[in-house]
């Protein structure tokens, strides 16, 4: 076999992995790789305008499609710019393979031009990383990276490539399979634990199913729906888990956590058996830990043993992958014709319906000023609930999560763990590339959108028509809300005294811009925008500047200590709560 260059080996590996899109940005250390990408058609390279966007776009692609996202950046500033995106993918367990250029092996450690210790800088925020020092193991390393990124609890893997490795030559062999003696995720749950869990689950009088991103990451939604409907139990999803169970189904009682519904949080607080599936008991969900689910015995299904009993001690841990474990539970229940306590569960549902009747997501409509919630409701209507929605970070993110009812997994794409402003726009571009025939909307805010605005140019270049729904309140609204509640309205550095004209800006990038100032124009504008199938449209909605996100559990509060709306006086938290985010 003819030896080929490291750069060519890389491209061949990507083809072997079936990679469609490579999100990247060139520079000195990766020039050889770019040369190998020239004159080939299989891998389409998307030239972003900032490396952080390359990672978010790859995340958007991965989150929408379930495939591994692939990124290529140069050494030094290229890779440091990518770090935010890598950390974002790490926190939300998104499968990515990131290639970074590095100075030639002989110069490593010399403070060479554009040298940074990429492996060192990214170590705390990757699932694993490699520095390739020998071209003979390049192909195998790439195979390992894709395997590690996409299996078990997924995550980003970085491969640092010194320039001489991309230039040197070796024969190309791509391993068909890879086995790592030190990495063997447990997929199948322990039969004895599953049996014990089923007994506990069926004995419940006040059961509650709480599921998260793990169901989506594992494509376990069909099994979740089947099990939930077989049991007839109430179900709530985390922010990362929305869409895993259809939001319009009557058993769904809304998102839980800091900005979850009253009924979901109250049901969590009062349940006697909690069935946690692919969720990690995040502090935005648990509230104050010692007030969390005080009367529940807990079953926890998770592929990562370190997620189990990390924040909350559980009674029946099951390490395994969601679809496998849930299928096994369904089989036990069906085969043995087991029954739940329908009478007790019926009483429980009546209690939950009383909580539901509080209508915790109601808001005061207005004929004068556009309410942000109203925009999302109309977005839901106009897209018939079918669009892929990406989001930035802030109040608008919460309203999108609360008022757009996601009926399928991978329809809702947002940055949950790291909460990265700037995520939404490049993620929308990645999602649109994965699903060109579907409507994609990016719900954003006047603060967030300005963090990745330059990607409007990339979106023009690659014809990724998405609809940008900017809930423009003139403020860093989420922070302003906290200042209003917890800092006696001292609005320090949250008001934007100068905002650009987003309509002109959109037009400058070659897109369509619209500014909407009256509630009566909201629906029409959305309809007009979505009718422009092949254009990116920037919809700048001028919204109520003072609107707050409700319900809310102030940090440090328990799940039964929710603020429902303006009418609730609270608005102080104790010292312990103040240190929390």
């Amino acid at each position, binding site marked *: 076999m003819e030896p080929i260059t490291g750069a060519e080996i890389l491209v061949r590996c990507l083809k072997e992995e079936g990679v469609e899109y490579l999100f990247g940005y060139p520079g000195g250390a990766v020039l050889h790789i770019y040369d190998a990408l020239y004159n080939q058609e299989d891998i389409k390279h998307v030239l972003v305008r900032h490396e952080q966007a390359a990672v978010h776009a790859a995340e958007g692609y991965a989150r929408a499609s379930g495939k591994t996202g692939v990124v290529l950046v140069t050494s030094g500033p290229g890779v440091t710019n990518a770090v935010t995106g890598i950390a974002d993918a790490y926190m939300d367990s998104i499968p990515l393979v990131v290639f970074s250029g590095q100075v030639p092996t002989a110069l490593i450690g010399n403070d060479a031009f554009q040298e940074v210790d990429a*492996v*060192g800088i990214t*170590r*705390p925020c990757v*699932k*694993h*990383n490699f*520095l390739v020092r020998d071209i003979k193991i390049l192909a195998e390393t790439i195979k390992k990276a894709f395997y*590690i990124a996409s299996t078990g609890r997924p995550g980003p893997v970085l491969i640092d490539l010194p320039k001489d490795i991309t230039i040197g030559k070796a024969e190309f062999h791509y391993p068909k399979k890879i086995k*790592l*003696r*030190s*990495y063997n995720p447990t997929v199948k749950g322990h039969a004895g634990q599953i049996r014990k869990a089923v007994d506990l689950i069926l004995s419940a009088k006040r059961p509650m199913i709480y599921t998260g991103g793990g169901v989506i990451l594992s494509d376990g939604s069909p099994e979740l729906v089947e099990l939930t409907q077989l049991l007839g139990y109430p179900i709530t999803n985390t922010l990362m888990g929305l869409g895993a169970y259809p939001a319009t189904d009557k058993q769904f009682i809304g998102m839980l956590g800091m900005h979850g519904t009253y009924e979901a949080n109250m049901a969590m607080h009062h349940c006697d058996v909690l069935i946690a599936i692919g969720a990690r008991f995040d502090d935005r969900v648990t509230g104050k830990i010692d007030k969390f689910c005080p009367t529940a015995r807990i079953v926890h299904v998770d592929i*990562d*043993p*370190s997620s*189990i*009993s*990390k924040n909350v*001690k559980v009674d029946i841990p099951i390490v395994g992958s969601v679809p496998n474990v849930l299928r096994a539970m369904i089989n036990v229940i069906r085969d043995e014709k087991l029954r739940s306590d329908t009478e007790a569960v019926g009483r429980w549902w009546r209690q939950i319906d009383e909580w539901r009747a509080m209508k915790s997501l109601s808001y005061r409509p207005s004929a004068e000023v556009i309410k942000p919630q109203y925009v999302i409701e109309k977005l839901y209507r106009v897209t018939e609930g079918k669009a892929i929605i990406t989001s930035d970070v802030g109040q608008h993110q919460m309203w999108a999560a609360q008022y757009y009812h996601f009926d399928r997994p991978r329809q809702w794409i947002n940055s949950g763990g790291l909460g990265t402003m700037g995520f939404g726009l490049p993620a929308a571009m990645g999602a649109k590339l994965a699903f060109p025939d579907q409507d994609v909307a990016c719900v954003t805010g006047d603060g967030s959108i300005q963090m990745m605005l330059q990607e409007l140019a990339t979106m023009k270049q690659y014809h990724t028509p998405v609809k940008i729904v900017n809930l423009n309140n003139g403020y860093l609204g989420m922070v302003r809300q906290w200042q209003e509640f917890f800092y006696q309205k001292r609005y320090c550095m949250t008001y934007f005294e100068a905002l650009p004209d987003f309509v002109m800006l959109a037009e400058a990038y070659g897109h369509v811009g619209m500014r909407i100032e009256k509630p009566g124009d909201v629906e029409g504008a959305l309809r007009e925008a979505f009718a422009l199938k092949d254009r990116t449209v920037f919809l700048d909605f001028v919204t109520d500047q003072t609107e707050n996100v409700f319900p809310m559990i102030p940090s440090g509060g328990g799940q039964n200590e929710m603020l429902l709306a303006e009418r609730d006086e609270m608005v102080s938290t104790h010292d312990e709560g103040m240190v929390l985010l």
Partner: protein
Amino acid sequence: MNNNDRHLISILMENEAGALSRVANLFSARGYNIESLTVAPTDDATLSRLTLVTCGNEQIIEQIIKQLNKLIDVVKLIDLSETDAIERELMLVKTKASGEQRAEMMRLAEIFGGRVLDVTEATYTIELTGPGSKLDNFLRAVEKDAILEVVRSGATGIARGQKALRA
């Protein structure tokens, strides 16, 4: 288990650049403490053995073990404090040894099973091995200002009986 029990954790990991940093990084990033750490390649050159001493309550130790296992480079590990195990540490101590001190120092070294490796007219350099507590006791037994320098390797260990940690 007590709130701040001491644990001796022994890890078999890939003998690769960066593996040690991953372990050290994990402890600093997650705020766990490391009292001591030793590492060296094993008879199988592709593997190294890392032994560390840490402390924490049951929940923290459980997390430490899970997080260590999660590192891709970690092949296997054992919490030696949970089994019947032998713990050993090497210590080199340079002490003053002149006049009356000389005989006294020699006697102490003998009691603790130490060996004198180097002698000058004013000093001894003594080698001692044993569990950390024994080395602590020796240092306590020696008069404070007689100690010139102390070098400890950090604890390492192995399970008793037929149990062996292998890849």
